[in-house]
């Protein structure tokens, strides 16, 4: 009996199209797209997918991944390593692209990324010394400085601060004057940002280190800039930020700012509409590029966003490629920008892209991962578009390494301890050494 089974198995292997009786990965015609962001109901990204479905007659099935970024990465990576994920297209965070490429979970897109993708954004899709392209940038993101224009004006400042030092001294002045007549529970703080120990803390740390002279291409190795960067962060926390900032993520910091309790906030453009909606009438805000380290310095920010990649074991690689191409076309990117996302192509910003041809919707309801509504009248780009374009040109990716996740965990652990600890003693050489070790993929030897 066993022998018969074995013979059948061999025949099975020989016969083309004979499917394994085990868990059959999506042998039907549906294209399976795995995504962390919620694309399942409404929103421009979902509409772009529907448009492709109508045009090609294919169906895209969306698998909703865990609701935290860490969970999404963990599941996609582990399932890929175990060889049992049945997806065609992965919508992945830009920071994971290098690791997924090295782990063989996504397949190379090609030798080059054609088109007018922004050069800083392009880097996130490219890894390795040979510059192979592994994914296509879907939507990007850059950190912005939100500021209370009404309060700045009240105290005689006619624009946002240019340097971090200005931000701190202006804050201290305005806090002192404002809080003289405010009740304790409405105290105004200078700034809020994302300092909870999660990916947001790594992002804020890198931005502070880059403003202190750190080179985005060599982040792990420069102990001097690293120490100055984390020290500057702690100094801001101590002087102008609420202690609660050490427990804040994007949403919590946005709530604080929208409640009128902070003069400045570092956040992504995605929060613009929420702030606009929630800030009390009579209060005004605007956005600017993040401050620089010095008056001649660059306004550095970390690039966020998502890339689309073809899964290594995709059952429908051709359709996957067609879908990704459509979702990232110049026209699609124009639609994304109009509906509150940061587009990845230059043509969306300079007005040369073809007009967005999605049916006009009431543009009020968008995806669960953020409030992207009514930032612009239908058919027009949002008010911060030029600013965002400039910020993206000055933006840089996080270290593109197959070991980025461990690196980020190390940074979070050290910086979080440093920020909440009483001791100011330098952590830079230890952190630099641990971070470099983390990026190398190696560990402590034989202890």
């Amino acid at each position, binding site marked *: 009996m066993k022998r018969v089974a074995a013979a059948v198995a061999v025949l099975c292997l020989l016969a083309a199209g004979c499917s394994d009786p*085990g*868990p059959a*990965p*999506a042998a039907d015609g*549906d294209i*399976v797209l795995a995504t962390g962001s919620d694309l399942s*109901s*409404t929103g421009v990204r979902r509409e772009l997918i529907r448009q492709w479905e109508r045009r090609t007659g294919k169906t895209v*099935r969306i*698998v909703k*991944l*865990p609701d935290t970024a*860490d*969970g999404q990465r*963990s*599941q996609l990576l*582990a*399932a890929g*390593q*175990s*060889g*049992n*994920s049945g997806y065609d297209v992965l919508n992945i965070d830009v920071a994971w692209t290098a690791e997924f490429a090295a*782990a063989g979970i996504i397949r190379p897109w090609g030798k080059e990324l054609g088109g007018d993708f922004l050069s800083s954004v392009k880097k996130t899709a490219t890894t390795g010394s040979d510059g192979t392209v592994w994914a296509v940038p879907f939507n990007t993101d850059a950190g912005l400085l939100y500021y209370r224009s009404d309060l700045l004006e009240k105290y005689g400042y006619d624009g946002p601060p240019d340097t971090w030092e200005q931000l701190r001294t202006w804050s201290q002045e305005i806090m002192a004057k404002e809080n003289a007549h405010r009740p304790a529970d409405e105290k105004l703080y200078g700034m809020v940002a994302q300092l909870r120990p999660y990916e947001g803390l790594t992002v804020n740390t890198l931005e502070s280190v880059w403003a202190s002279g750190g080179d985005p291409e060599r982040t792990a190795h420069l*102990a001097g800039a690293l*120490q100055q960067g984390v*020290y500057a962060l702690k100094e801001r926390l101590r002087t102008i930020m609420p*202690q609660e900032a050490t*427990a804040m*993520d994007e*949403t*919590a910091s946005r*709530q604080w700012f929208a409640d009128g309790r902070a003069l400045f906030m570092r956040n992504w453009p995605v929060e613009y509409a929420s702030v606009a*909606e929630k800030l*009390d009438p009579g209060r005004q805000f605007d956005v600017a590029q993040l401050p620089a380290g010095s008056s001649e310095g660059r306004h550095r920010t970390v690039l966020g966003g998502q890339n689309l990649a073809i899964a290594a074991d995709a059952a429908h690689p051709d359709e996957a490629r067609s879908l990704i191409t459509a979702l990232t076309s110049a026209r699609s990117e124009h639609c994304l920008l109009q509906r509150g996302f940061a587009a990845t192509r230059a043509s969306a910003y300079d007005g040369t892209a073809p007009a967005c041809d999605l049916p006009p919707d009431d543009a*009020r*309801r968008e995806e*669960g991962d*953020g*409030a992207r*509504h009514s930032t612009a009248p239908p058919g027009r780009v949002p008010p911060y578009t030029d600013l965002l374009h400039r910020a993206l040109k000055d933006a840089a990716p996080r270290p593109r390494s197959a070991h980025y996740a*461990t690196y980020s*965990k*190390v940074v979070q*652990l050290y910086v979080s301890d440093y920020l*909440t600890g009483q001791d100011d*003693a*330098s952590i*830079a*050489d230890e952190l630099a*050494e*641990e971070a470099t*070790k983390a990026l*190398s*993929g*190696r*560990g*402590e*030897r034989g*202890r």
Partner: protein
Amino acid sequence: MPLYDARGKQNRALIIGVSRYQDPRLHDLDAVFANPDELGRVLCAPATDLFLPQEVTPLRPDTPEELTAALRTAAREARGLLLVYFSGHGRVRRDGSDLHLLVGSSRVAQDERRVASHEAVSWAKDVLPRLEASRADRVVVVLECCFAGNADDSFRTHEKPVSLLMAAQPNRRIFSGTEPGGGTLFTRAVLDILEHGIEGKEFVTFEDLAGELRRRLAGHTTPQGGAWVPRASKQNTVDDVVVSFATRELRPRTPFAVRARRWWRSRPRRRLRLLTAAAVAPALTAAALILVDRLGPPESCPPAQELRLLTAPEAEPTLRAAALAYEMSGLNTEPVPGEDDVPDGCRRTQITVYSAAKDQVAQGFAAADRWQGEAEGADEAPPGGSGGQATEPLYRPGPQPDLWVPESTVDYLQVRQGMAAHAPVTLHRTGPVAFTPLVVGVPAARGLSDTEQAGSSWHKILDDAADRKLRLLRPSPALSGIGLMHTIGLYLADDGAPVGRDSGAPRPEVAERVESRLRAPGSQYAGSAELLCSLRPGASAAAKARATAAPLVTEKSLTDANLGHAVGNCPALATVPEKDDRYEAYYPAGVPGLDHPLIRVAWQGAADAARRQAASERFADWLRRPDGGQRVITEAGYRGVNADGRAAPPPTGSPLRDSRAGVLPDVGVEPYTAGQQRVAQVLAAYDTAHRPGQLLFLLDTSTSMADGGRIAGAADAVGRALEVLGPKDTYGLWTYPGPGTTARDREHPVERIRTGSSGPDAGRRLLERLQRDDGGLVDQGAWMQEALTAALDRLRDSPAERTKAVVLVLDEDDGAGKRSKAARDALSEALAAHPRIPVVVLATGRGGCDAAPVRHVVEGSGGNCVAGGPGAADTLAGLVASFGTGGQEAGR
């Protein structure tokens, strides 16, 4: 006096000289410029006979980090003698303390007392700890800077033998700024002694050097006048160290053993080739491969194998820190059985730690086939498959875990009970990794005078707490393993006898008495961290509530709260709370504690199953090792695990040993051993002691709810609340305002799901439709007052034997304040009517819980409010669970 001879050992010399300063207030030290190179030359000279050229590092640091990094490297590499030599500026506070060494970028603080540590290198904080951490046998430090003599004050090492030579006595400057280039006076004297030896000596020891310097400088004065006397000091040694073998006598030949060792160490490549040649005969090819491997650049490392570790929210931060410590450990670079050829030295495993509420974990495992199916991209499960519970386990609880650390064995037994016979997953229990006893936190100002902190029965504690008018607050037994174990303790250890195999079934009168004290509507929380966070001092609104609150939590989380550590979403406090804001821990007798068993989870069909298992087991093993995970676990305030798998007493240094923690670290802790049947009986008794709930969800579906994703957030929270309803609880779901154009149409809410329905499926489907379907939202202001009045009237008219509550999802931003006075008055009346029906408000609008209409409703009904935002879903679920039977995982 014994002598230390470092010849032939792996020595290091770090020679630091700073001659250029950016701060104009610090004059440049031209004379220093030549010091590092000159000293380097002399130390490697054949006459000195101590260091090899590659062992000496001259350094002219611009930043403090350059100096500390080089120091760290030298300290780590040295095995024999470590020599550290600094010449440059030094500064102290006005009182002469806290010597700092200044580097190129250092600035003088305006206020001299504050030499900022990020601008200079602290002798006590930056230098000494790195020397202490060195692997060198002996350390010699020479400080040639102003105030060098002040270094002696803070010169302490615990174990490391260190000799310190200071260029002058305390409180002396040694540079005037006018010294000519070409080496300082002091260093030139040192160089001469090291290079040429001392008349009549066979070599130069540390003591000789110090004595000879004193002799030579005796005729000199410091730049400010006065005698110049170099000082020497030692820590942890009485020995002397040879610092140069130069002599003016006939010099004996360097011993052969020393020469041989040096030859060997100075030629690493040749050494390798020799070693290789020795190994060549048996396996030529293999040896050749090793040679190539060793001499080439290290191969790049592939991504490590990803392990997913699921736990409860309270344990997540600790396990996260432990997992990272393992990732970066030496053990994690050892080969794992089943791996393909991973290059030497690469990390093998990486671990992502995440958490979920207890009921969601149980639902995930109960729908394991669906969990696996989603991960494989399979089509959606047919409606009703897997019990129709968690529709998307991959979304929540999250990734398919490889490791699961529930709070206690009880949670594991519960999950086992709920799993399907042919689930594509198997669970392997490997024993506990961390213990913590269950406690009641009593406000320090209201200590229970008649009750012992340890050894008193629950019965007595409950009596005493009632006398003191304490409100007992508990995490939900449905959502939290802590809440469930507390309930087990309350029911089974009422008389203080230990809960064990011999414990009888819970007695109904005990359960009834307990729940009469604990079932106050709205008294339950999603978890212990959230509970303690809500009681955190600082939030003014919480001050009154805090004074009478007695949280049922764990020793670990109470310690965190008392010491001002971060708990849940509450950040760490800048200082430890005042005594009156702290709690004293009471340990009810006989109550089992949490044992955090580690469960290995094996999913069918994984191609790398063998390696995954081996990697998981190695991590589990490390987690229990005293020099491994146990360090992290006990530092976080848990009790550790001893070799027998039982709870170990907390080590010194544990936060439990801090008297301000308010705990009794020597009270023992036992795991739960009474079996699954008792758990089921406890849950049944809980069920009986609670009247079934009757809830009415009232949802604002006016178009303003669409803004900012509010409807999605609201639907998510209501969906989560539906999951925690027990099988006997019923609910209805209404929306408002009604469709139509006239006020009469609009003031009637729409009854979307009939009151009295049970099972979450209908509700879940409706919520999905509301989010998706454009027609679901009504384009006019909301008519909350009218709708809520109608809802309260309907509930009041229904049979009385249920616990009733309205859950109102409100966006007060449109229309709510503009209703007529008559409508408001009608609502006030409905809220005040007896029996009162509490209204729990999920406030998604701008004003949150402070908005006037929200306050009106909450205060008028004796209800609660949850502000929209992250965590709102679980908080609401905790409150809703306290209205129903909710004690069992939903749907079972």
